[in-house]
């Protein structure tokens, strides 16, 4: 059995089943690490809480909503300005956050009255916002406030507002994943079916499990619009509250992050018969086949092919410029959940990177199954990693790069491993054809950082080379590669703008004639 025993975790034997080495002849049913189990206390696990999974991951990317947390101030403060889910309405959801600021007297006497005052105040402060999400926290769950009843009361008094309640306290489950589930189910139970949308296309989708990190959603929406597809709603990045109440009228649910949002797709299939199609916006190959699949579903393959051809022609020479220089570089792919399988194979196939390790903080066994099957033999797969295990793995594997969260990235930096932000990205978006080039560019810039190379020199012991006053990335990256590649006239570095999203906003799209009035599938 290829379970991987960490030296640092020998004293906590239950950890052994949480890590495996992928061997060439592995059998996934033998080798799958345990997943989504209770965290071992005191390990310095990287996991967050179920409140964060519900509010910060899925709730808050909704753009036209007052996001109010019912509890003490910390939960609100912590989940404010700590992610990069932008929107095309001037980032209201990033800029403003709301807390009922529960105090001791409320713990003793209940906080329903103060919550009601809060709701009214918040709507009054932002009169143009008529929608609200309220998130339960550990404290409000434990004292048993009936948030739904309070919201109902307000909705009766203020008929133009609508309020969504998410009961997902921090302790609800081993990680943020519990919160993903809770908010998915709450939304489909309480809000879907309440709004009848205007259907403007023969092809109508919900784009699900997409959070518009640095503009990912807007990139993908651009392709859908160019195909003449109506994106009825996005769950939830750059998504609109009322659009999401109309999810039941889509013909297809296009699912990006199956870890965080498959639940709502499965419910929509059960309740409204809307099929679920899993896609992948990352990487030329997976993105192209995703667009093809959607085209095939609607019988508009030609529209998908036209986009694939145009985008590939535009961006492939830039991707290949980086790919030529990244061959064989070792990467620890250590994201939160779904990116371990969204990226594991494709950064190998399209950029030549060797994925020497995958991990997931809050993924389930299914995520590991996909991730392990997609990464190369020899890779170390870790469930719910903790800080010492991460360090031990990096010392052993000596990666050229780690792709992980912000704070774990700082841990890697200290042992001279450069990092890229897997959750919020460095210079994203990373979805789309251009985005994938941006990702390759960021990887290249991290791996060949001349400053980073200086970190390995011990000026007290090593010979100091005095022959160079500077080193460029290309002086480092091009010395061992084929001169034909170096001198290629076709391949070139990324040529896009610092902000690749601006050009998509207010863009005009082709009008495809509608065949007829459509009803829901």
């Amino acid at each position: 059995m290829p379970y991987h025993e960490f030296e640092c975790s020998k004293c906590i034997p239950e950890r052994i089943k949480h890590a495996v080495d992928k061997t060439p002849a592995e059998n996934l049913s033998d080798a799958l690490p345990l997943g989504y189990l209770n965290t071992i206390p005191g390990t310095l696990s990287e996991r967050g809480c179920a409140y964060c999974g519900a509010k910060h991951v899925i709730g808050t990317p909704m753009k036209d909503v007052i996001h109010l947390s019912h509890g003490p101030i910390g939960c609100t403060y912590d989940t404010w300005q700590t992610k990069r889910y932008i929107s095309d309405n001037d980032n209201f959801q990033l800029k403003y956050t709301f807390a009922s600021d529960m105090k001791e007297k409320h713990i003793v006497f209940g906080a329903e009255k103060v919550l009601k005052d809060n709701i009214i105040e918040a709507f009054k402060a932002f009169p143009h916002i008529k929608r609200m999400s309220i998130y339960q926290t550990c404290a409000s769950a434990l004292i048993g406030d009936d948030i739904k009843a309070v919201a109902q009361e307000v909705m009766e008094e203020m008929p133009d507002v609508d309020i969504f309640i998410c009961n997902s306290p921090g302790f609800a489950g081993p990680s943020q994943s519990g919160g993903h589930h809770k908010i998915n189910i709450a939304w489909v139970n309480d809000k879907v079916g309440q709004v009848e949308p205007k259907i403007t296309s023969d092809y109508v989708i919900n784009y699900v499990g997409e959070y518009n990190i640095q503009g990912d959603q807007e990139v993908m929406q651009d392709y859908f619009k160019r195909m003449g597809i109506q994106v009825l709603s996005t769950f939830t990045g750059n998504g609109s509250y009322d659009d999401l109440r109309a999810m039941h009228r889509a013909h297809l649910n296009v699912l990006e992050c199956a870890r965080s949002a498959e639940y709502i797709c499965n419910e929509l299939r059960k309740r409204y018969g809307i099929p679920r199609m899993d896609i992948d916006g990352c990487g030329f190959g997976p993105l192209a086949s995703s667009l093809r699949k959607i085209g095939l579903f609607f019988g508009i393959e030609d529209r998908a092919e036209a986009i694939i051809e145009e985008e590939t022609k535009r961006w492939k020479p830039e991707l290949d410029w980086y790919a030529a220089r990244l061959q064989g570089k070792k990467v620890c792919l250590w994201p939160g959940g779904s990116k371990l399988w969204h990226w594991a194979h494709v950064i190998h196939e399209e950029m030549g990177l060797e994925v020497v390790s995958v991990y997931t903080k809050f993924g389930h066994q299914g995520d590991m199954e996909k991730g392990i099957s997609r990464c190369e033999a020899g890779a170390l797969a870790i469930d719910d990693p903790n800080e010492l295990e991460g360090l031990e793995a990096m010392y052993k594997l000596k990666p050229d790069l780690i792709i992980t969260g912000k704070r774990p990235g700082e841990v890697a930096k200290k042992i001279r491993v450069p990092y890229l932000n897997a959750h919020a990205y460095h210079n994203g978006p990373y979805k789309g054809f251009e985005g994938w080039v941006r990702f390759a560019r960021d990887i290249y810039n991290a791996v060949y950082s001349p400053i980073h190379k200086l970190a390995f020199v011990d000026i007290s012991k090593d010979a100091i080379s005095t022959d160079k006053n500077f080193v460029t990335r290309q002086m480092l990256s091009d010395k061992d590669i084929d001169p034909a590649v170096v001198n290629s006239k076709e391949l070139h570095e990324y040529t896009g703008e610092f902000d690749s999203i601006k050009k998509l906003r207010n863009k005009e799209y082709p009008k495809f004639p509608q065949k007829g009035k459509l009803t829901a599938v």
Partner: protein
Amino acid sequence: MPCELKEKKRTGVINPIFTCQPAGAQYASIGIKDCIAIVHGGQGCVMFVRLWFSQHYKESFELASSSVHEDGAVFGAVQRVEQAVDVLLMRYPYVKVVPIISTCSTEVIGDDIDGVVNKLNEGLLKEKYADRDIHLIPIHTPSFKGSHVSGYNVAVEAIIKHFAKNDKKDKKLNLLTGWQNPGDVKTLKHLLAEMDVDANVIFDIEEFDAPLMPDGNHVAHGSTTIDDLENTGSAIGTIALNNYEVGKAAHYLEETFDIPTKIGPAPIGIRNTDTFLQNIKELTGKSIPESLVKERGIALDAITDVAHMFLADKRVAIYGHPDLVIGLAEFCLDLEMKPVLLLLGDDNTTYTEEPRIKELQNNVDYDMEIIMNADLWELGDRLQNKGLKLDLILGHSKGRFIAMDSNVPLVRVGFPIFDRAGFYRQPIVGYEGAMILAERMANAWFTDMEYTKNKEWLLSMW
């Protein structure tokens, strides 16, 4: 009445200035050497606070969670603490100090962290870790009381209470720094060195600015040792900077060990630095050396260049930690500026008794508002809807959108600052800090002049 002290009228918070108590206790904990705190609560209470510190410092700090899940919330979760302590001690052989920090959830369910510490002291530590010097310190920081500022205050008191002894040989001066940055602590230590004073620096966080070295793993950490902490009970005097952050610990030392105590302002600005040195002089008998006269002179020379030409009459709003806000307001007045809005972001009711606020109320000759229990919407609403005119805002990074949307330059000062590089390295205390602050404000104003074409030509000849 020109200077009005009042409470925010709304019940809720829109864009908080402060976070909750456990975050403050965690900030105190990371100041101690060989210490990893266990936060008893949900995992987010640690994960986000570690992120918060890493946003500010671009460093990672070690903090653990007891990972309370649903079963613990229902049936009690003290056994999670027991397990966490054991796992932590097994895997981190250098750890000596383990604060156990409570949160809202574990306070509501009534987990007895004092009881579990006693149990561990009598059981696990004796049986399994008898050869190690381990200190478990229960710290009660329910999130529904106070803020991270009071959480820091509570934690420093609990830590000092645990360690302070009056029979230590080293008789030094206690310097309780309050919530500072590494650059500030470096400056405070420099001032002490110039005065030839040995001090127990609580907490010495200079190493929070950690290096990237050719080998090894040089994680950011605090440098205050158990010895330093024990020595606090035997000190010749205590200087506590920032009453709201270390006042409790200072009072404890004063009352328990009869240690002469000065609870004074952080040395923000020239005048408060003078006071700081005067306090050191009184408690130690040391004199203020010529070198500091010169340092002061350099700062005064630099500040004179920007004060009455550029900074005079500039209208500013200030938000952040109460001691910081008051200190900055005092310095701004010396700079001929007009702090017109001060935001104190928690429900502390003692601000009405604060002598430094009373001084402002008695002497300010223009309209100034001081808002208690404030949030950042008190600022945003006034700017966007009520016609407040400001030239500058002083505060931490969480106010960045309100400042940007109102086109008022935000001069970053306080905690956290995540949208400017390296500010934790630049002191705002001492003479050097005064100079840096004045110049930072002036430079922010200069950039604004240039990019809003507001007499941008003025600086061509300066």
